[in-house]
């Protein structure tokens, strides 16, 4: 693999994800092993997909929580999906915040759930911002590899 400045930047960025606890090192490394020549865009697509879906899930959660009455089934489903998808790609902080939200919600405290949701949104926004850059770099780095 080429060791261009771009790749170096990628490595650094990836490492910072790990260091900040945004991504789980083990899970991401594992996912990378699944990528191969036949599907070089695997990780990139995965991240892109997650960003898209997680944004939707969070939007849905917000709407469900703001609705009167609160839409429980949607909440449950969205939180569950977010939990599963964030765990699958190693988005640790988002996964953690989702779990917190779930717990608070199950406890029945809607106000706290809303607060928790805000935290989740912040984490998500932060993660998204960085991941978008990372994915962009990944795309850029691709052609030079092959």
């Amino acid at each position, binding site marked *: 693999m080429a060791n261009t400045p771009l790749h170096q930047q990628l490595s650094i960025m990836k490492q910072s994800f790990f260091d900040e606890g945004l991504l789980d090192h083990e899970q991401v490394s594992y996912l990378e092993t699944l990528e191969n020549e036949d599907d070089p865009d695997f990780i990139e697509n995965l991240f892109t997909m997650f960003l898209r879906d997680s944004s939707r899930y969070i939007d849905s959660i917000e709407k469900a929580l703001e609705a009167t009455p609160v839409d429980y*089934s949607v909440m449950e489903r969205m939180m569950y999906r977010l939990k599963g998808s964030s765990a699958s790609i190693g988005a640790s902080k988002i996964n953690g915040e989702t779990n917190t939200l779930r717990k608070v919600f199950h406890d029945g405290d809607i106000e706290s759930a809303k607060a928790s949701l805000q935290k989740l949104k912040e984490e998500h926004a932060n993660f998204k911002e960085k991941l978008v850059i990372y994915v962009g770099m990944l795309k850029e780095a691709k052609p030079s590899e092959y």
Partner: protein
Amino acid sequence: MLNLGYCKGSMSTASSGGVSDQFPVGLRVLVVDDDPTCLVILEKMLRICLYEVTKCNRAEIALSLLRENRNGYDIVISDVHMPDMDGFKLLELIGLEMDLPVIMMSADDGKNVVMKGVTHGACDYLIKPIRIEALKNIWQHVVRKKKNERKDMEQSGSVEEGGDRQQKQSEDADYSSSANEGSWKNSKRRKDEEEEVDERDDTSTLKKPRVVWSVELHQQFVAAVNQLGIDKAVPKKILELMNVPGLTRENVASHLQKYRLYLRRLSGVSQHQSGMGNSFISTQEATYGSLSSLNGLDLQTLAAASQIPAQSLATLQAAGLGRSTAKPRMPMPIVDQRNLFSFENPKLRFGEGQQQHLNNGKQINLLHGIPTTMEPKQLANMHHSAQSLGSMNMQLNAHGDQSGSLLMQMSQQQSRGQILNEATSSQVPRLPSSIGQPIVNNALASGVLARNGLAESGRGTGFNPVSQSSSTMNFPLNTTAELTATSFALGSAPGVPSLTSKGMFPEEISSEIKGPGGFIMPSYDIFSDLQHHRSHDWELQNAGMTFNGSQQSNSLQSNVDVASSVLAHQGFSSSQSNGQGRNISAVGKPMFSAGDATDHVNAQSLGQPLNNFFAENLVRVKTERVPDASLQTTLFNEQFGQEDLMSALLKQQQQQQQAGIGPAENEFDFDGYSLDNIPV
């Protein structure tokens, strides 16, 4: 053959049905998960294991795929939470119908959930994030299952079996018209038998003649069990009652075992469900008197057997009695009905016929109608649907206000979450909320649908029409006596967006309607024709199949507008040109007027086709044509080879839709959440 548009590397000609020499290479896996990210990762890992993977994001789609190609998969992996159906229910259905090993997955690792998976019959339970190691050995479940099945068959008494077969063969030979045919049959049978024997001896192969428990077969089974009484139902007697050539006692025995498990689980679930359903039912309970056995089914027995909540049973009975109730409310039953309905189409037809007679000529409240039709099937379906009903019912009930929903027929629409509570609803004071119920149960419907062998509900939940219709069936059906179970309950409860809003509809509408099997069109024509003929004054019509399209996908906005205007007319205006009092009850969005149907139809989306079918009978009842692709009131006319239509319809839809990928739920403005982006 199915057009698995989105099927990746799938289905190898599943028809081959066997395992390659390089087993487990090529193991055909169907993976079901509503989260795209997880689905992609799983697919990737399974491919690395050299398995053949088919992805699916809806339980209903999965069931369709499985039903359409019964021998096309070796194992199923599904998440426990699906929008259109509870994962455990899917698990049970697959076990009952296709007898495939199912692995459950979950993002939760609570002991309770894992236990639930085990008790529901999952052969394994994986926690996300899943690693490839967990998937590498899933083939063992396939082998194990086949071995067990073979053992069952052998134990059952091969001698007896062989004897029976032989007898059958010779008998058949006697009846063959031509010598050639006869000899061919004989030799074929002999060959089959030999192969069977060979298979028994060869334990290494996975090939094994597996009895496919089709909807009809299962219904016969259930009928036999009910007749005998669940406690007294022994395989031998069931077999005798069923009188299906080629079926062995072992087949029945193992199926019975699963069925019992299923019932037990259902009872646990139904009790748990309570909620709205119960509240509704309880009031009715008092009103209803003796049980009426419908179509030879002993409700009591069924109820006892399946442990249907008393209230549900009461409701069902009441339904049977129908008309007598002053305030028919179709709470849970409706939902169940739906399931019942779809599940037992044949029965339904049966029952309906009877019901219809009863109800014919009466202005029956939709409510009344519903129960009636449901009965036979309901019971059957209740078992199955009970589980999913749980939350759904609650939801539905909540929305019960949509009397229009009764018009179940409209139920189809519901999927989109439309609960037509249009102005017309005011007309139907009688139909209380119940409508909401049927609709919601997409999940149920899905399951039921599957059961009917209609399968193909290509469109995710959207396809619930079938199931939904069951509930709706009752309603309008009675009046029109044609209500085929298919009436789909519209009015998906908002709470259950997933159910109805299969994003698909809106998107697919235009393309689908036209193309496929022309189902769509015909129905409309029929619809108009019917309208002319029917002069019933369906209360239903007024009842307003008003659907509240709000939930509907955004794309249908235009339809909605049309609908609203139509509705404004009071439901009679069915946009259709039908001059007669066809009250099409502008349900929701009467999108298609018979005359104009064509255009609209196309726009409508898949759902329409179904609706069309039903529309025929339903038309009368519900003119509401939900603009969305959702099915219009699908009062499926029994007479129309319901199942045939359905399958055709489904097939169509399936083709339209990408294989296995249904639209994302339409909740909260998710639009066409498709998996198209998944890289190949």
